């Protein structure tokens, strides 16, 4: 009966699709993510999590769909381009340029000597001063860096780790001199020391005293700087060093949980400092894998803070994070293609619910970016924000069979790593045993093999290589800037009170040796114009330095 109505056309079924799919030959390619995870041809309702509460709603536990109820309908992400080169004068000029072009927060890149705790006139600093970031030797440089910028209004991020406590002291004293008290300062200092030993490799001290210095800084800023994010727990560098998405997620969260554990052991109430922790993730080119990573990260953090650490304040459960597109995905060949890569990566960050974003410039596989390249990178964010419409609704990919399945898988992989790390005695032990370092080295070697064997196509590198344009204009750092900075430093040394400097260093060493919080003596040292290198070397006299046993 009713044989002639449309209802009688056989309903498509999953089984039917499976048959039809099996009858179609697949093209010659590997269907795996950038991290090497196999992907099914189709995801269905059966791949959704059993418990719909694990997806939930935005702004509520477990925050899979975003940390705020209104997300980008309430407020767009902060467009925060990382910048720094030359001396504080040049970087101050770049900062003002970025603010004039609509950037809404500042992010400071320090040069290698500053990251390693060497003064600009140290022999190891030769050729490195102001190259990869701005040179900051004393509080005077810090003052110049933010001259004419209202630090009570603009939030500032500082990417510095091993000597973070010293730079924070400089920043607080520089702001104090500009009439802005510590409690009004908003921003973030990276200070994620564990990932230095894992991936970024800019260290000053052995792991244990470095963890203590970080603890001192967290404790001090928790009390004195209510608007300050005390640590930016960073997966970015872990990923850049060659980690998979799951490794980035797992190692970063485990680092963060280790800092929480330490602060709780020091007697801090988890709800006093956890709301001030923030995260920093990479945005690689495998679009959905990245989105799943951010969603899984929020869920794991919320659960661990609530269930494991017993945090009561929902603000402690929130994982707020900054995203930067992947420097390692940029190619020196056909550099304009990098604009496209960066746009896709940035979109993943936005669809993953980031709170702030840095987009790389297309020329960064060649040198530090030119102003024009930085402007295009910023415009990329503005196009995503204002033209694409992706900000009109919250978590537009929520409920996608594929994205939810990937999110669950990513979460599972992170917990698998947590178990392995716990078996090794926790993250500090695991790092000392080179465990994450080895995992990352293996993953990065494997990926390179896939690229070398053209199992993974990189456009312009191992396929479609014709038409390279070698004419990209690049930013040249004038070698004279190094001499200028050395001159600045020596001028400060000549005019400061040498006895006050000596006294400040003696006090830093005393507290390092005998215990107590190092922040007050570091602030005193900053006020006395003691240089970063002098302070670091004083601390090294007490604590020693660090040498890696590399694994490859």
């Amino acid at each position, binding site marked *: 009966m009713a044989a002639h109505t449309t209802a009688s056309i056989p309903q498509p079924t999953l089984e039917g699709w499976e048959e039809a799919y099996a009858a179609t030959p697949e093209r010659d390619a590997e269907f795996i993510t950038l991290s090497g995870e196999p992907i099914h041809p189709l995801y269905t309702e059966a791949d959704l999590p059993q418990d719909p509460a694990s997806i939930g709603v935005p702004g509520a536990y477990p925050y899979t769909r975003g940390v705020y109820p209104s997300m980008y309908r309430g407020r767009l992400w902060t467009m925060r381009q990382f910048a720094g080169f030359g001396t504080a004068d040049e970087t101050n000029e770049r900062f003002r340029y970025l603010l004039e072009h609509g950037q809404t927060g500042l992010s400071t890149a320090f040069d*290698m000597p500053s990251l390693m705790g060497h003064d600009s006139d140290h022999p190891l600093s030769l*050729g490195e001063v102001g190259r990869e970031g701005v040179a900051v030797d004393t509080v005077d440089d810090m003052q110049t860096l933010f001259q004419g910028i209202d630090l009570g209004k603009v939030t500032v991020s500082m990417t510095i780790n091993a000597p973070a406590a010293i730079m924070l002291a400089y920043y607080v004293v520089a702001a104090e001199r500009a009439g802005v008290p510590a409690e009004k300062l908003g921003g973030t200092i990276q200070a994620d020391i564990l990932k230095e030993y894992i991936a970024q490799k800019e260290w000053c001290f052995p792991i244990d005293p470095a963890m203590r210095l970080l603890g001192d800084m967290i404790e001090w800023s928790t009390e004195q700087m209510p608007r300050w994010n005390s640590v930016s727990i960073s997966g970015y560098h872990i990923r850049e060093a060659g980690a998979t998405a799951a490794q980035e997620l797992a190692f970063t969260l485990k680092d963060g949980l280790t800092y929480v554990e330490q602060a709780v052991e020091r007697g801090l109430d988890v709800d006093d400092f956890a709301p001030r922790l923030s995260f920093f993730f990479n945005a690689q080119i495998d679009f959905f894998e990245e989105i799943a990573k951010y969603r899984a990260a929020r869920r794991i953090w919320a659960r661990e803070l609530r269930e494991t650490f017993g945090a009561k304040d929902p603000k402690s459960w929130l994982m707020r994070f900054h995203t930067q597109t992947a420097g390692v995905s940029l190619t020196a060949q056909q550099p304009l293609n990098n604009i496209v890569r960066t746009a896709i990566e940035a979109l993943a960050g936005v669809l993953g619910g980031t709170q702030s974003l840095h987009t790389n410039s297309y020329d960064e596989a060649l040198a530090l970016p030119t102003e024009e390249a930085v402007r295009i990178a910023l415009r990329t964010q503005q196009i995503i924000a204002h033209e694409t419409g992706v900000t009109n609704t919250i978590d537009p990919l929520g409920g996608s069979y594929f994205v939810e399945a990937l999110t669950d898988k990513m979460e599972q992989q992170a917990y698998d790593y947590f178990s392995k790390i716990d078996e090794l005695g926790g993250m500090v032990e695991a790092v000392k045993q080179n465990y994450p370092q080895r995992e990352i080295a293996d993953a990065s070697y494997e990926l390179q093999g896939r690229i070398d064997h053209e199992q993974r196509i990189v456009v312009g590198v191992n396929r479609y290589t014709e038409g390279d344009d070698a004419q990209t204009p690049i930013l040249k750092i004038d070698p004279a800037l190094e001499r200028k900075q050395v001159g600045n430093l020596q001028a400060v040394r000549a005019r400061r009170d040498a006895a006050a400097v000596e006294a400040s260093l003696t006090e830093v060493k005393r507290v390092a040796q005998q215990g107590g919080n190092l922040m007050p003596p570091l602030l005193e040292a900053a006020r006395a114009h003691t240089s970063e290198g002098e302070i670091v070397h004083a601390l090294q006299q007490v604590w020693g330095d660090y040498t890696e046993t590399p694994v490859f």
Partner: protein
Amino acid sequence: MNTSKKIRVVVAKPGLDGHDRGAKIIARALRDAGMEVIYTGLHQTPEQIVETVIQEDADAVGLSILSGAHMTLVPRIVDLLREQEIDDVLVTVGGTIPADDIPELKKLGVAEVFTPGAPTQDIVDFMRAGASRN
């Protein structure tokens, strides 16, 4: 030439940058290709690198620099090698090296410069050919 002798390569990280992904991949690829690889680890001074080259009786040295300090550090290393009268060690550079700097580095005696995206096999082949010639 004794073909059974393994090629000895020092992979070195001069300067302060901690970007060691490339250096470690190359070190491993050279090792997998049957060479004897000595990786110096990070933050090496030119003096330390030249010392390692001498100690290890290396056939080649690969310098990995991503800090922009290559025009300061590479000439220093090449000069030190020359001062020690070492002229049979193949010197290569890898990293974020702008195109304009490559001819200058080659003029100093650097045999080849590999920028991001260079296929690992090319580097292995180059090292093998160059180190055997020396």
